[in-house]
Every structure is written in C-alpha cells, then in structure tokens.
C-alpha cells in the first residue's frame, strides 16, 4: 500500500511536469501561464494544506476506527441515525479508507441505509473547511455542510427502502 501511494505521487508529479513542458514547447506563453498558475496557487494554499494535514493526522490517531464503530453502534434508532448523518462530517481521508471501516460496521449489524448515510455525511469534509472557505467562501461552505446532513438523511431512508428490504426492487 505504501509503495502504491509513493508510485501514485511520482506519477502525478511526473505527469504534471511532462504536460507543462509539452505545452511550453508548443507555446512558450501558454507554458508560462501554467507554470505561473501552479506556482501562485501552490504558495497560496501551502499553509492551509499543512494545517489540514495536521487536523486529519490528529483525528486519525485520537479517533481510531474501533472507537468510531463503538460510538455509532448499529446506526439504528433515531439517535444512531442522527449520529451517522453528522459525525462522519468530521472525518478526513478518501473513500479508500472509509470502505473497510464501513464493512466492519455492516458486520456489526448496521443497516444499509446507515452505511449510505455515513458515506454521504463523510462527504461533508469539515477538516477541509479551511480550503473550502478559501476558494468558495463561507456562505457556500456553510450551506453545503447543512445540506449534506439533509442529503445524508434522505439517502439513508431511500437506501433502507430499496436495498435493505428482502424483496428485490432494484
């Protein structure tokens, strides 16, 4: 896994360099536009990225998956459902990291709807708020965060209705 990540990193970086050099060779001024965009945006976000990485790192260490599973339980009942629609907003990581955790939740008896709500709420991405507000502003970020809870709620209800039932609807 670690090797894979490193390769990924290298791939993205080399691809970036190749594209920029290619455009530069085609048209110097356009190549400069790309280089300038990368340079300016990079230093604009560097401090935010460092802060965000620290937030996510701390969260990962202090709130381990078993703790999350314990807190959320089956995600059943109104309280569990509300928790499943809100708590994951605080989590970082990518879908690659949440699927294994959700499998555990599922094995503990969580309903399909709760799992789907969890994924949706996880899309809230509160640890990235510094980035979101910088590029899209506080109104957008706050409205999006509130709507993601509603989104997660409806998602859970729909998924329970369609997937959880033994009768095949899909």
């Amino acid at each position, binding site marked *: 896994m670690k090797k894979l990540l490193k390769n990924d990193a290298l791939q993205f970086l080399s691809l970036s360099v190749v594209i920029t050099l290619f455009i530069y060779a085609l048209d110097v001024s356009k190549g400069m536009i790309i280089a300038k965009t990368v340079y300016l945006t990079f230093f604009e976000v560097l401090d935010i990225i460092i802060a965000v990485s620290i937030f996510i790192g701390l969260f990962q260490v202090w709130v381990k998956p078993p703790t999350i599973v314990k807190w959320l339980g089956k995600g059943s009942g109104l309280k569990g459902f509300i928790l499943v629609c809100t708590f994951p907003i605080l989590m970082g990581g990518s879908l690659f990291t949440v699927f294994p955790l959700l499998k555990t939740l*599922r094995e503990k008896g969580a309903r399909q709807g709760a799992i*789907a709500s969890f994924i949706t709420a996880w899309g809230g991405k509160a640890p990235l708020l510094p980035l979101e*507000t910088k590029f899209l502003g506080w109104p957008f970020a706050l409205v999006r965060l509130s709507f993601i809870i509603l989104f997660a709620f409806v998602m859970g209800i729909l998924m329970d209705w369609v997937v959880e039932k033994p009768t095949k609807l899909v």
Partner: protein
Amino acid sequence: MNYMRAGHIYLIIAVVMLGISFFKERQKTKEALKATLKIFYTIIPVLVFVFVLMGLIQAYVSSKTIASILGQKSGILGILYAELVGCIALFMPPAVFPFGGYLHDNGASYGSIAGFVFTAILIGITTLPLEIKFLGKRFTVARNIFTFVLAFFTALLMEVILR
C-alpha cells in the same frame, strides 16, 4: 491593524491542538505527526496536478466558455454537466475545492460547483470496484445512482439560495 492570512490562523490552531495532544500523550502525537507527513506527501502531488489542469484551462479555455457551459444561464444542464465531470474526476477531496473555486471565478454557478463537489467526493469511477468488494453490488449501484440524483436536487437548492 496587522493583516493576518486565514491560513496562519489555521496553522496556529493546528499547532495548539498538537501541543494539547503532546501534553496528553506523547506517543500518540508522534504517530499523528507521522500520519500528517504521509497525508501531506499524498496530497501535494495531486494538488500540483490539479493546478496544472487549472493552468491548462486558463491557457486554452476562455472564461466565457466555462460560463456558457457551467454558468447560471445553463441552469439545470450546467449542474448535470458539472456532476458528470465530478463523477469521472480522479481528484482527491482536497483538490476538489481549489478546482471548484477556480471554476467559480471563471463564471461557473454555485449550483454547478456544488454538483461537481458532491459527485467528485462521493462518486468515483476508480472506487467503484472497491465499493462493490466491500459493500456489495446492489448497495453500490443504488448508492451511486441515489447520490447522483440527490446531489442534483441539493445543488439546485444551493443555487437558489446562494445566487
């Protein structure tokens, strides 16, 4: 008054939290720092790649074109286009917001941006096989379809509220 970048405030908060963590448990804080470094190294290359993409669009696509495809006038279709882009975009979540902000600066509507952000984070062609493996085919198909549809309505609502 001294002007302070928002980024600096976040950094200070992060360092204070690290301090509290260190005070409570050293070993865990060490682990957290290791995780932080790993996250940082994973995010940066993807971000650089997305910035190159932004530069490419800057160099070859006019703001007018972006606005005509994803702007307020293109309305519902704009949101759908943006959602489709989000579905196939291979971005990690941290890269989604700079790209979204860039599109917005060039005339894309809030609704389109919201559609893009939702699907870019919640639907990934690359994660589909993994989702099927961990959560099943039925679940995966239903969740991705519902996400696309609900993202559309949520984005529409956001467009109405934020415009």
